[in-house]
């Protein structure tokens, strides 16, 4: 019962919007805004499953690898910098600078060094999305409860034990908040790098459809991209609700 209610809360707005779009666009003769029914038809025809295999899966592979690199680098680096205060203070200006520079601004230089293939795309996805994770991890490590740290010292926790049982769990809520932000950034960078880089991927698919004036096909790509973004976010929230069960219970 509770599940059904939650689902209803989650779904009502999208359902309303899609219905409005369906009705409003029915019979539309506009070249740029074809009827939603045509777009959905195209989605079914194209994306089950040829385009999924050819374009979507490679995209998911790139965002998956890039995002995982960002998580690992962000958490490991964040724990190190959080614990080694002098190192963090020395690097802080650089970090702030890099964070403030939009990742895609490095696209031209990344293409010079890494080409237009997967390496460049994955590198930029990871680079652009690592910052919120890194900075939130640093803050989470820093804000560990002093009484808990004394407790850990008095019970002779090893450094690894302190990291595993105090610092990381304390940082976890912030890390997940950072991951949600990072995932949104990663999606944007994935699309942009695919539009600019070597052919293939859903970003390239959308741009290529537009260039060949296949507007219905272009819209089908956009719809699929939206669905994928939503699904990725949902997957992350599922992981979070498992890992942070204590946190969600505690804070209602």
């Amino acid at each position, binding site marked *: 019962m509770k599940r059904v209610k939650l689902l209803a809360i989650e779904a009502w707005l999208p359902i309303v919007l899609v219905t409005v779009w369906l009705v409003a666009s029915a019979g539309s003769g506009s070249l740029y805004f074809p009827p939603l029914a045509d777009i959905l038809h195209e989605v079914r025809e194209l994306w089950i499953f040829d385009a999924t295999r050819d374009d979507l899966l490679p995209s998911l592979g790139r965002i998956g690898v890039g995002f995982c690199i960002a998580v690992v680098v962000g958490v490991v680096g964040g724990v190190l910098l959080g614990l080694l205060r002098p190192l963090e203070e020395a690097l802080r200006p650089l970090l702030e600078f890099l964070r403030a520079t939009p990742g895609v601004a490095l696209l031209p230089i990344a293409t010079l060094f890494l080409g237009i293939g997967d390496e460049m795309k994955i590198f930029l996805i990871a680079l652009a999305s690592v910052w919120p994770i890194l900075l939130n991890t640093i803050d989470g490590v820093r804000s560990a*409860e002093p*009484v*808990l740290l*004394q*407790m850990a*010292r*008095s*019970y*002779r*926790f*090893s450094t690894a*034990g302190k990291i595993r*049982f*105090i610092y990381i*769990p*304390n940082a*976890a809520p912030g890390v997940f908040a950072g991951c949600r932000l990072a995932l949104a950034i990663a999606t944007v960078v994935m699309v942009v790098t695919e539009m600019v880089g070597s052919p293939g991927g859903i970003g390239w698919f959308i741009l290529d459809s537009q260039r060949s004036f296949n507007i219905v096909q272009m819209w089908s790509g956009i719809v699929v991209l939206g669905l994928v973004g939503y699904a990725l976010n949902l997957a992350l929230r599922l992981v979070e609700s498992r890992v942070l069960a*204590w*946190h969600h*219970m*505690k804070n209602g």
Partner: protein
Amino acid sequence: MNPSVNAGHPGVLLNVQGLSKKYGDREILRELDLIVESGEFVCIVGPSGAGKTTLLQCLSGLSAPTAGRVVLNGREIHETPPEMAIVFQDYSRSLMPWLSVLDNVTVALRSTKLNKQARHERAVAALTEVGLGDHLALYPWQMSGGMQQRAAIARALAYQPEIVLMDEPFASVDAQTRADLEDLTLALKNHLGITVVLVTHDIDEAVYLADRVVVLGNRPTQVVDIVEVELGAQRDQISTKADPKFSSLRSRVYRGIRGEAPTAADAVEG
């Protein structure tokens, strides 16, 4: 569990010599001397802000003294030794909110080199002993203050220390829970033969629990009096506190804290 090796033969367990502590220019503790014998229950009583927490941190090696030294079993302390466990003043913040009580206790046993199974068994035994045997899976924030403090005590017991330091362990629970926890602590101490050093600002609590009360004066804090409490090992919230000896002991401690000289009557009683 693990009766202290020296239980039958009182000997010096903890020896504090000329302990001073300053934070910058602020002198908190001045040249404290203190001896705790094996198997003793020592209460250190002093007014709020006297530096009781500071003292316990020095005794446990969590904080380095400015001068003087702390010797446990003949070795000078620089970090908390394995034969010592601490129950912190702020119990709700000394438990990890992301772990169940059971895990809170088992994780604290990782430095003991016991295997996983043995750690689990010890943790369950200790939690059962403090009356939390049916609540192993609860998170700390799902428990009342009294239960959290029991969990913190269980964690110290499971560690099987020779000596437990407790920092105002019952200061923030209601009166009834407080009496229960006091009796629990006494019973555990008698049953396990461990040494307890408990810090409190509550004079009644100090006299009720202790074999010896160490009275601290105002800052810079020094030992102003040491009171032997001969009320026997078996104590009872009602009859012990009604004992005339109890009330004369507590007025002696009270005068010590106020900075008045002990009277002749105190000397006879003590």
